[in-house]
């Protein structure tokens, strides 16, 4: 068997003008995409074609036209071989409540072709790796959502695939559970050497987890690039201020003051920032150091409280906004290292 040797050089998924048309809808429209080893996020609203793509890649549904290769194998001819080397974690609940995690995962390992002894060994290993210990002998019915997600992940990994498809793995998890799951997904690649294709409509998650993000919408490829490119620092400043008695709408007062000083100011687009209400955020085009001073002076002059003023990063969510909205060009300012900076990113939802 081909072990973990493929993780370096080959593309794991290649599609060539892949289309899938149903009588009434077009689920995929001439989608051509190359996906390299690593953690790749597949982003799209509900109905964007994510599940259809996974179905085709698993060789379960024929494409209307175009070709797709997974791990170098043709999906139309070698579906069985692909499914032997690929893991799949569905979005929905798929666990029977009356068996224990161990029994269930052993059964699934055998369904993947592992001999009985190997199935038991791999099950013990995999459940430990996803963080299930003594509870794995209890019936799944009594598990929390987080534990169930781990079992679902374990069954996708138990046969040591070269690639896993994770469909909305953080669905229904609380923030802590979500962080743990994202960490686990990261480890699947870094520690286990397994490539990951993870779908989500929560963009903030993918910023934090993926090397590469593929955005599809209406079955079409909207963008495919590395996560860094998505989250470059822009030249605009996000400013949030408090209201005072003198200025019941502090943001509006500041906007007027800054506009008077000749600075381009936009108010936060609805739904763009999770924490503050949109009206309280201003985006200020920073021409240079003096803009910071200007904002500071304007805020002080109005007697408002400055809640925050920070360099703004692109967020993947912007891909979905009006295509006309010109993004500021790549800025050179020293970006804080990781995209983890935007903790509120997890709240973004295109659906």
């Amino acid at each position, binding site marked *: 068997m081909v*072990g973990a040797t493929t993780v370096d050089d080959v593309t794991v998924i290649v599609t060539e003008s892949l289309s899938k048309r149903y009588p009434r809808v077009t689920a995929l429209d001439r989608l051509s995409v190359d996906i390299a080893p690593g953690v790749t996020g597949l982003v799209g609203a509900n109905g964007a074609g994510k599940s259809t793509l996974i179905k085709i890649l698993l060789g*379960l549904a024929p494409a209307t036209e175009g070709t797709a290769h997974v791990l170098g194998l043709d999906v139309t001819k070698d579906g069985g071989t692909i499914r032997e080397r690929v893991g799949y974690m*569905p979005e929905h609940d798929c666990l029977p409540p009356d068996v224990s995690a161990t029994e269930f995962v052993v059964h699934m390992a055998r369904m993947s072709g592992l*001999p009985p002894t190997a199935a038991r060994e791999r099950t013990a290993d995999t459940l430990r790796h996803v963080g299930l210990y003594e509870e794995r002998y209890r019936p799944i019915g009594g598990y929390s959502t987080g534990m169930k997600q781990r079992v679902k992940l374990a069954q996708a990994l138990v046969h040591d695939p070269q690639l896993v498809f994770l469909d909305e793995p953080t669905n229904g998890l609380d923030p802590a559970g979500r962080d743990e799951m994202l960490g686990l997904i990261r480890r699947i690649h870094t520690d286990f050497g397994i490539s990951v294709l993870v779908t989500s409509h929560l963009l903030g998650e993918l910023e934090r987890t993926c090397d590469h993000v593929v955005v599809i919408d209406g079955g079409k490829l909207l963008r495919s690039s590395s996560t860094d490119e998505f989250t470059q620092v822009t030249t605009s400043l996000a400013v949030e201020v408090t209201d005072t008695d003198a200025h019941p709408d502090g943001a509006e007062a500041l906007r007027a003051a800054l506009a008077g000083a000749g600075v381009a100011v936009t108010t936060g687009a609805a739904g763009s920032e999770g924490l503050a209400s949109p009206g309280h955020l201003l985006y200020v085009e920073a021409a240079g150091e003096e803009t910071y001073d200007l904002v500071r002076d304007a805020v002080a002059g109005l007697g408002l409280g400055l809640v925050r003023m920070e360099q703004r990063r692109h967020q993947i969510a912007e891909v979905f906004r009006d295509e006309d909205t010109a993004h500021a060009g790549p800025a050179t300012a020293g970006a804080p290292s990781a995209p983890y900076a935007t903790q509120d990113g997890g709240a973004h939802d295109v659906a």
Partner: protein
Amino acid sequence: MSPEPTTSVSATPGGAYIHNIGYRHYDGPRLGRAYARRSLFSQSLRGAYGLGRSAKSKVLPMLLFAVMCLPAAIMVAVTVFTKAGSLPVGYTRYAIYLQAVIGLFLAAQAPQSVSRDLRFKSIPLYFSRPIERGDYVASKFAAMASALFILTAAPLLVLYVGALLAKLDFVDQTKGLAQGLVAVVLLSLLFAGIGLVVSALTPRRGFGVAAVIAVLTIPYGAVSAVQGIAFVQGSESAVGWLGLFSPITLIDGVQSTFLGGISSFPNGLAPTTGAGFVYLLVTLTVIAGCYALLMRRYRKAGL
């Protein structure tokens, strides 16, 4: 944690070991689709008797199995002690006498076998693995039919062994057993098909149980009643044909025509040989039809 062989164990001078519990790749054999199909078959077959499931779920199938075999044991005892010249019941009719037990077993286990996967949406986990729709259906069908075969063939073996102990004619008894086994093979396939199709229609297990019982008993009740009426009114040929409309009378018709049994129809009327062929044909068609319906049912049940 069970002691696992570790890939790298580095010895330190003090004699202590550092076990590497990092991720290990699997490079053993992958046995593929045929093996997965066999595994699913054995898992489903064991599951039908509650093996590999909770203690609670073993009670009913084991109880029914005992109930199925008990009359055979009693008959054998009676035959041995009374030194009778033949068994009180023919091999081919035994299952028909105990059809209620078989029906209960099917009603309890067929939904268990298929509704669970549908209800808890485990089907995509199967179909994202090497096995395909046909493998899944074939495994489940074969497992259910085998479970029924074990249930119905075991008492026949008890009868056979008992008959030999009672020193009944060896050739007669062997022939009877063989005919009986053919009858229960047909019965197992037919009942498994009907039970699985009915249970696969609903993800709710309770509905499945009720529906299987209804499908087995209501036609039987109706056919028996109408046969009785037809017999009283003197239309004996109609009695022969009416048996086509319920599963157990189908088997009864086949066994009484071809397998040397006596039918349970009113007055022991058996279908004519021509009608017998129709019975056999209908039985085989229903089995094939159930298989096709199951295949259809799972076409949409994928991801």
